[in-house]
């Protein structure tokens, strides 16, 4: 049987959704033009403008309660999602995280948002749940070449950033995970990692509507192994960018250095966009195993979110900026 490349098939609902997308395209182009005009700087006016116009752009057009992603692929089960986790603060064994993290205290919880902002603010987890929570069905592609489809509950990160009003010199967003050796055995077990876990996004990436702060899965509050009580979900990047159990969000001028950039500078860069063309130095990223399937599927550019995010990297060398 001749193999048909999945990218050659356009499912009907996706085809229809593209029409919707084209309608939104004008706004995206306009935003991109503003970005270009700002010459890389992102003044708060721009952030506001982008914020005001983004809510409908880019969000994958999957109606809430769907049982598939927008490509027609089924959701992974709650069981799969909550029992197969990379969370090195607990253990490097994916199957053991759930057990080791089950008593992790996630309430009360505070997220301090500060740095180069006009209105620094500390959010309790309840404050965060007061944002309008929506369901987002995203593919999660791990750098280890496996993937899942996950129905997150959350809200766009830009909504939070708009509240704190980034200053004009803010260019990046720096995220930090809780650091609690008493509750997280991995911190002392693996002292060679530069704890706490840190990740970052460029401000325009953070403002993209696909980037969400997730507080739940399948309509339930997040469990500790999935990054409770609040974590990032940036589906066009490898999974490790979607930092878990966030306690700090800072707007900064210089590119934050993530834990993985420190641990293996030759292997992990700042961007970590899913890209089948650019291999990890030690393994191919061309294919992935969808958890629950036999065989492998071809990995999609930007994990299948090319239409929503490609503009962010226009003119950038994606081989150099891994």
């Amino acid at each position, binding site marked *: 049987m001749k193999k048909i490349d999945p990218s050659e098939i356009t499912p009907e609902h996706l085809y229809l959704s593209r029409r919707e997308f084209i309608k939104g395209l004008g706004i995206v182009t306009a935003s991109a033009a503003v970005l270009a005009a700002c010459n890389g700087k992102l003044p708060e006016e721009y952030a506001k403008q982008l914020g005001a116009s983004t809510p409908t752009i880019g969000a994958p057009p999957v109606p809430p309660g769907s049982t598939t992603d927008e490509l027609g692929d089924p959701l992974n089960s709650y069981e799969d999602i909550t029992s*197969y986790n990379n969370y090195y603060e607990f253990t490097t064994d994916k199957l053991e995280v759930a057990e080791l993290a089950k008593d992790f205290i996630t309430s009360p919880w505070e997220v301090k948002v500060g740095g180069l902002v006009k209105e620094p603010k500390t959010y309790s987890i309840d404050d965060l749940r007061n944002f309008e929570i929506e369901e987002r069905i995203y593919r999660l592609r791990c750098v280890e070449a496996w993937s899942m489809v996950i129905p997150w509950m959350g809200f766009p990160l830009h909504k939070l950033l708009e509240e704190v009003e980034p200053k004009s010199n803010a260019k990046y967003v720096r995220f930090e995970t809780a650091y609690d050796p008493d509750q997280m055995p991995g911190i002392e077990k693996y002292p060679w990692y530069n704890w706490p876990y840190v990740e970052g996004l460029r401000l325009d990436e953070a403002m993209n509507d696909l980037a969400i702060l997730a507080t739940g899965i399948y309509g339930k509050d997040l469990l500790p192994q999935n990054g409770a009580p609040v974590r990032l979900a940036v589906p066009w990047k490898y999974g490790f960018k979607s930092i878990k159990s966030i306690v700090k969000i800072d707007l900064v001028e210089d590119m934050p250095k993530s834990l993985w950039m420190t641990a293996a500078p030759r292997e992990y860069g700042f961007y970590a966009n899913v890209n089948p063309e650019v291999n990890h130095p030690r393994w191919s990223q061309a294919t992935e*195993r969808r958890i629950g399937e036999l065989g*492998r599927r071809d990995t999609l550019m930007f994990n299948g979110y090319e239409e929503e995010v490609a503009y962010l990297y226009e003119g950038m060398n994606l081989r150099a900026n891994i």
Partner: protein
Amino acid sequence: MIGTIKRNSLQILTHIGAWIPLVVGLWDLFQGNLGPDPIRETTLRTGKTALTLLMLSLATTPLNTLFKFKQALKVRRPLGVYSFMYASIHFAIFIGVDYFFNFEQIVDALFEKRYAIVGLSAGLILLPLAITSTKGWQRRMKKNWKRLHRFAYAAGALAVIHYIWLVKQGVWEPWIWAGVLSLLFLLRLPQVKRVASDVSRRVSLVFR
């Protein structure tokens, strides 16, 4: 008489021990105990078992030369053959389940994943060793048999490199195997062998 029982019990122990990972693995597979990614789990388990058995097989010769533990030589062959068995299962899962016979993807994986090509090389070295492991081949090949079977060290080294290259930065388990292999290799160097057996003789004299 006691010696016979002891020797037999080590051999029996080897044969039983070598099947346990497979039996447990199959049990866990049918019980659904392998987690959401049973393909990865079975690949890891069979790979680790193959490596462990290969190292044990390599350890038998120094156990005899240094500690006069002759019985160890009796299990060198089965340990090596069982290692090859697990390596074969490991490879079969890679081809048939992980990549589901998608040869285009397999070729890509072999050329783009350096750990895969190194692992394949280790397996290809073990293949002739397993074939010529019988007494008949040992007789027919005479001196060459020993020369050929020294390549087990090369297979061990490639298997350890395979493991080192596939884990993330900060995972040290394969480096423990690298240490074990280095030690086994050192113990085979004539100079080291002389000193080590001398030491072990003196120690045994003290305890006698």
